[in-house]
């Protein structure tokens, strides 16, 4: 009896010290990030929080001065500001609509272009293009070129020029009338046009997710599929029993990324940005940033909780 407890004690002590050692090693691995977070993000966040509770005035080149005004900025944002609540609501709504579409589409496309076919390298390069074109520097350069053109010459010719320059525009109304003549109901046409328009947005927003899914698919060893085929699995079963569980950790990654990406480009962030840089209202801009980021964090928490349970990990 006492021998047992002694052995157990010994065992437990050994395990404790081992897990203690492991936890130290784990902390060393994440240490650079922790230092960086405290040093750059947390300290800056504290300043931003202080700004959100203050009346901030910019004084020349020397910097800004803050005077405490408690919850005034928050109260103003929610009760007085004409568009903030509404903008935030629509931002979140569009996010929730787009995310599932983008995830399905990108997984579907990744499965397609992961297969062996001629011209695969070219197709992958094309599917990578939205990642490059959506990146800030190029997107901004194109935007400002367009803005210059509209500001620089008369609106009518600018319209002609932009339609020449940036897009292969098709006279969609012409085709719509054609279908209308074929007695296809208007509401159906409207729906199709809407869906097609959305395809464009979704394709452009799926670049990163497709690349991530491709990497996930490529990390599945071919031997697993061979074994499944020997056992007589159909390709349908192979997808649901092998591919899907194996990529599921990165489905979570992609959902999180998609939510964040659509948030970062959403109207509410634009509003916060313009409040800071056009109206020089740092306090109110800080409130907008903090409130919207907190809301997205809550959404992410809920999504991660739901999806995390269904995600397959080797443990």
């Amino acid at each position, binding site marked *: 009896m006492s021998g047992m407890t002694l052995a157990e004690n010994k065992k437990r002590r050994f395990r404790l010290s081992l897990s203690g050692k*492991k*936890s130290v090693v*784990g902390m*060393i*691995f*994440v240490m*650079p*990030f*922790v*230092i*960086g*977070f405290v040093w*750059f*993000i947390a300290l*800056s*966040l504290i*300043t*931003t929080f202080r*700004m959100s509770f203050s009346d901030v005035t910019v004084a020349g080149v020397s910097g800004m001065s803050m005077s405490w005004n408690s919850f005034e900025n928050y109260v103003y944002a929610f009760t007085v500001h004409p568009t903030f609540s509404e903008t935030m609501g629509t931002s979140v709504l569009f996010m929730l609509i787009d995310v599932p579409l983008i995830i399905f589409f990108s997984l579907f496309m990744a499965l*397609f*272009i992961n*297969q062996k*076919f001629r011209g695969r*390298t070219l*197709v992958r*390069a*094309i*599917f*990578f*293009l939205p990642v*490059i074109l959506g990146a800030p*520097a*190029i997107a*901004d*350069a194109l935007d*400002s070129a367009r803005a210059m*053109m509209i*500001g*620089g*010459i008369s609106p009518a010719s600018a319209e002609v020029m932009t339609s*020449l*320059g*940036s*897009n*292969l525009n098709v006279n969609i109304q012409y085709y719509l009338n054609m279908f209308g003549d074929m007695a296809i109901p208007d509401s159906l046409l409207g729906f199709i046009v809407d869906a097609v328009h959305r395809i464009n947005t979704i394709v452009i927003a799926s670049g990163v997710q497709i690349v*991530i899914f491709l990497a*996930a698919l490529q990390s599945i*060893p071919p031997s*697993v599929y061979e074994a499944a085929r020997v056992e007589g699995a159909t390709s349908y079963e192979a997808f649901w029993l092998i591919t899907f569980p*194996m990529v599921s*950790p*990165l489905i979570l*990654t992609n959902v999180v990324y998609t939510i*964040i990406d659509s948030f*970062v480009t959403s109207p509410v962030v634009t509003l*916060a*940005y313009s409040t800071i840089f056009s109206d020089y209202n740092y306090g109110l801009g*800080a409130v907008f940033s903090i409130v919207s980021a907190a809301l997205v*964090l809550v959404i992410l928490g809920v999504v991660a909780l739901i999806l995390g349970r269904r995600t397959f990990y*080797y443990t």
Partner: protein
Amino acid sequence: MAKFNEKLNTWKNDPKLDSARGHLERKVKGWLFALFRTIIVVGIAYVILSPLIGIVANSFFSTEDRYSPVVYIIPQHPTLERYELTILRMDYWNVLKNMMMYVIGITFIQLVICSMAGYGFARFNFPMKRILFACVIITIVLPAHAIMYPLYTTFQSFDPLWIFSIFTGGSTNLLGSPWPVVIMTLFGVGLRSGLYIFIFTQFFRGLPREIEEAAIIDGAGNVRTFTQIMLPNASPAIITVAIFSIVWQYNDNFLGRLFNVSDNILLSRRIASLQATIANLDQIRDPSITTLYVYAAVVLMILPLLLIYVLLQKYLIEGIERSGIVG
């Protein structure tokens, strides 16, 4: 006709032809699927390429093409003048060389720091792990401009732990140099570092534990397990993160502008000022013409990235087929 029916019946029912039938069926199915795939891929590729076709085509337009109302997509008098002037005014080759060194250096740091953090989060238990991982998510979610002013002042008078005050008597101004970006990347909070940490974490969590356990039983230490077992197995994640890091660092114009990084390093700052430069130095004032130079510059910026992507993709696929990892 009867003969044909008879033949069809034997084809349908003859057990000797079973394998041939199965073969044909598979072939037709495969062919139909390939057709379906081609249609979808071509359609989506068109959606992606359509704005780019306009940009590429316009970058070859001469001035008369631009003013001619009948020219559409295909220039009548194609010219390389747009590219020549753009390369000259952007100092393209020089800046590209500097930029590549800067971007690849930063990407290397990102890979080391983020893969370490990802491994730590995926495989170890330590106090406050969940809170720290939430911090990773916060760094991704937080709009960069929300903390830009405090960051700016941090690097304007840079004095970690009063080191500079002690040794040189005063803080240092790091603005105007690439150091702020390098330092932030070194501490895992560079451009989109949080996202990379997240990707690595999920990848490492997806790898089977057996492979490390075998390594530990064989007597490998934690560091060796990480560098020699885990990293090679996570090569898809490494390539993916490398690709993203290169593309985004190359295209970054937020941190570059905030910390005033020299435009001898950043092509992204060159493209932003290109229109104004050409308007002033070359007296080309019409925005519809200067836009053509921007299009040429966009093409010039995209090409190196596409090349890098294609090379890395190739390497990725070969690497996996060679090592036959996992499982």
